[in-house]
């Protein structure tokens, strides 16, 4: 069962791309690929304010990952104990089946090795009881590392508070 879930409070996000850079330096991600990426939308006009939003795109660590199903060599794997989907680069043959299968463009091509790499939620840090690099060092704290069941509660709470604040 998936135990982890990275959520983003888009309102709090400033598009500073610290998450991308922390991921890059921590995981030695090669040039041209990004295990997590901020996708910019805008500026666009929202009630006379030119809003630029940034959407955090990493891996969703699916319960039934299509990338794993598509992988012919067993390189792409899902950890039973916590649902982390990761790739063992030693087994990867660079066939790109996972890239084709994933609807969100998560698996990243490594130009230097001709193999695939991807977000593994910094599983080495998780082993130490820590959180992924992107979440740990997010500039404004807009990223959170949560349990999927608790994230839903928090989201509802935030929504409720916002509604009441608007009324006040």
């Amino acid at each position, binding site marked *: 069962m998936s135990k982890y879930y990275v959520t983003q*409070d888009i*309102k*709090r996000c*400033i*598009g*500073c*791309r*610290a998450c*991308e*850079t*922390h991921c*890059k*330096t*921590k995981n030695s991600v090669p*040039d*041209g690929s990004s295990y997590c990426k901020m996708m910019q939308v*805008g*500026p666009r*006009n929202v009630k*006379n*304010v*030119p*809003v*630029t*939003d940034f959407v955090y795109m990493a891996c969703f660590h699916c319960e039934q990952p299509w990338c794993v199903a598509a992988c012919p060599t067993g390189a792409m794997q899902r950890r039973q104990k916590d649902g982390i989907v990761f790739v063992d680069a030693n087994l990867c043959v660079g066939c790109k089946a996972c890239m084709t299968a994933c609807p969100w463009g998560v698996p990243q091509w490594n130009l230097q090795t001709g193999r695939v790499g991807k977000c593994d939620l910094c599983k080495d840090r998780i082993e130490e009881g820590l959180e992924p690099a992107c979440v*740990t*060092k*997010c*500039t*404004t*704290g*807009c990223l959170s590392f949560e349990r999927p069941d608790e994230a839903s509660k928090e989201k509802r709470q935030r929504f409720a508070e916002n509604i009441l*604040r608007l009324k006040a």
Partner: protein
Amino acid sequence: MKKSVYSICGMCAVRCPIRVEVENGKVVWIEGNPNDAAMGRSLCAKGASGIALEYDHERPQAPMIRVGPRGAGQWKIVSWDEALDHVAGKLKTIMEKHGGKAIALSDRGGPYNDLTKAFLRAVGSPNYFTHGATCERNAHHAVKNLLGYGRGAVKYDYKNTKHMVFYGRNIVESIMVKEVKAVTEGLAKGAKMTYIDPRASVTAGKATRYWRIKPGTDYALNLAIIHTLIKRDLYDKDFVTRWTTGFPQLAEFVKPYTPEWAEQETEIPAEEIVAFCQEVAEDAPHVIFHGGWMNSRYPDSLYASRMAVIINVLLGSVEMPGGMWFAKGPGAAGRKGLKTLVDLMPKPTDPRCDGVGTEIKHIDAGPGLIHLLYPCIETGKPYPVKAYFAYRHDPLLANPDPEEQKRIFENLDLLVSIDVNYSETAWHADVILPEATYLERDNILQAVSGLKPAFYRRQKAVEPLYDTKPMWWIVKELLKRLGKGDLFPFETIEDIWNYQLKDTDVKIGDFDAKGFVSLAKDPIWMDRKDGLKFPTPSGKIELVSSVMEKAGVPSFKPYEKPSTGPEGSLRLTHGRCGYQAHGQSTNNPALHELLKENVLWINTKEAAKRGIKDGAMVEVSNDAARGKIRAYVTDFIHPDVVFMLHGFGRTVPAQTRAYGKGLADQIFAKGLLSEWDKAGGGVTLLECFVNVQPAS
């Protein structure tokens, strides 16, 4: 073997506290210093890219002496002994002929400049400069001659405010981690934000109100806001009566500047200005009218900034939670401050070459005005300046018109760049003295003022990878060679730290636990009823500034319309994004990957008129320069201006990633070295006009 080191980031001039993890002598992890509650582990992309800087081979790896013509890129790699002997030899000759005052140095200010100022004093020169004339000088003098506090001491409580107002202060992209965390926290708590800028930066998108103001008319807007606050009795009379001088003159001065008049100037509807004034008056005193930072823009930027700060005063937002407040030094906590290195040196007897402090009395002499150094170098008046050190400052990038600067530099006998990077100036210099990166060096201790003043320490996390040295060592070695070693009696950084801490009851070891030493338990606020202190001549907030008036500079200046360029031209503006620091790290491997080149923002209608398509190459030109850049066609910029990020179009071949990518704005700034706001000291960097057409 893993070790953890508390230090200070050095990827930009903000200097956030960090914690560095080192494994087998290599930096593997950098995060915010979690002991500092406002910081936490947060760190921006620039901070993250410190690891990429450390292990980048495209930085100067040893001292270099020029062997070809200036700027030709022909270098001899030398030992530190040879480089320092060479520099000291040149300096001696210059000093014998012209005196120590013929040596100038610029850096970018900040908490470590006690060291560079001490170096200059030791050689007998008053000519210390910062980059401030192209940055914060207008914003600084706006508060200094009004409140008595410098810009660095004027702070804002974003977390608890009800309304924050920014005039082109792109607060979420000009990242200071603690500040931007407070801003987003304030917004999450329901604060309003009004953002005023001809261009929709990312900050605009966080606002609750956005005004796409006509460029160069902030001053008109502020005059109308003050007019409205006074006319409609929306200001804090008790506070104004108790703490200010010159209110009647202000009230009289703003009388003609109605919202209806301002609408014609700013293109902001009069009724919106009035509604805004009512809104901020309701939110007062928990309001912030930001006085600006990089305000070296227009000939009236000092006044625009001054009026913004006056609005805080009128609304009682002074030393106020949720409003403007003043940073407290160690003295306010009943503690002693750090001893300064400058105090070890004889005071310079000569006046500054730029006349600041002697002829120009309303401008702070400390950092001078860098653009006024150039005429001294060129003409030898009031006296010759023959040696120039650019220390972690890149005048050919930061100051206008690099070609003109290079021409003037031909009068120098010695141009030295001390830098971690190959800056534009370093490549043009006679000698490059490569400084060790912030991860490889110790700095002198710094005192940080705030509600809780503290001392912070930058200490090295790893040994230098290349043959580079810390600045304190370079200063020590140069002074020794100049026969001034007795003035700087330190051999190690610990010697310096011990000297700095001498009067305090803090020991070096006290920094180990957290990376800093806090000097106060609780936040220090002045008593707003009777205990406010304003270090002005009158001890009050001087709406009519005695310092300015005495210098013949009016406290209030009648409004003048902004200039317009030649027919068909557009005003060239520039700025920054959240993942580049002005241009000092355009070549950083990690940051370069995020942004390889800049683009030119141009308004949709203006682009259509000229046949420019989104994403197509355009040619930008004027009398000074010509260059190509990709167009970003958008509704979200005022038709009178175009915009590009600063720091691109690099000319240093050794920076292979950034070399030749995008376009530099400063090359178009012809004549701006001598155009400045006489009231505030800032160069008018936005008085720059260009033609834009599709590239052939």
